């Protein structure tokens, strides 16, 4: 597994642990109420599990297994940018909600997430090719 995939997947596992913990606390509180404030964790629960876990895991695995040019994975810079922007975006969105930051921070977080997705697509696009085409390009 390449280094960037290790970062993507390990970060995804951390978000999974956090998202499951928040979800379990909210569900338990739904069964036997012990902290009404726990409902404030709902946006973070969704953000962590949808983007932090599922999307980030998909990025990590895609970076690892999409077709390569011999051993090369093409331009890795946009994929690294995707990693940083996605994580900054997720935390910005969550903290803006928790700490009642101005609405602009939430928008900025969403911009970071959207840019991350675009950056990853720019990286992955040329790798989505028939195997023959990959071999022909790499032998040039």
């Amino acid at each position: 597994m390449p280094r960037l995939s290790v970062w993507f997947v390990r970060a995804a596992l951390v978000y999974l642990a956090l998202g499951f913990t928040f979800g379990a606390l909210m569900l338990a509180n739904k069964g036997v109420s012990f902290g009404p404030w726990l409902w404030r964790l709902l946006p973070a629960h969704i953000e962590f599990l949808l983007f932090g876990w599922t999307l980030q895991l998909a990025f990590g695995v895609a970076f690892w297994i999409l077709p390569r040019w011999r051993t090369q994975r093409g331009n890795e810079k946009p994929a690294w940018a995707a990693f940083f922007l996605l994580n900054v975006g997720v935390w910005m969105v969550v903290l803006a909600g928790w700490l009642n930051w101005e609405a602009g921070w939430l928008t900025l977080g969403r911009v970071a997430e959207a840019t991350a997705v675009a950056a990853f697509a720019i990286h992955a696009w040329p790798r989505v090719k028939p195997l023959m085409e990959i071999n022909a390009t790499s032998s040039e």
Partner: protein
Amino acid sequence: MPPITRLFVKTSLVYLIASFGVGLFLALRPLVALPALVNGLAPVYFHLFMVGWVMQLIVGVAYWMFPKWSRERPRGYDALALATFWLLNLGLLLRVAAEPAQIVSAWPGWGWLVVCAALLQWLAGMTFVVNTWPRVKEK
């Protein structure tokens, strides 16, 4: 494909069908008078899909395809993987039963069963993370 992966993937397919079935029920609400229990199914519908299908499929495929832990223990602890399966499914099924039941029944036990469901699913998530973390490594 190892036996535990087959278990995870086949079970996830059952949840996929079940989640769409529950979704169909929810879509019928404006058209047909349904029991009050159905009103409590919205979070169940979403979690049948995201936990029962998406999460369980990921767990099964990751167990199969992620880099090997070691020569002696290629896929980590098999017992822990099996524990993840049972904890996740018992927790989710308990939620499916107890969460909507809480709405229509005054029995306080439903609330505690929801707490158990939360604990079981949380443990499933943690056992998966613990068993998978060492396999996420560079060659």
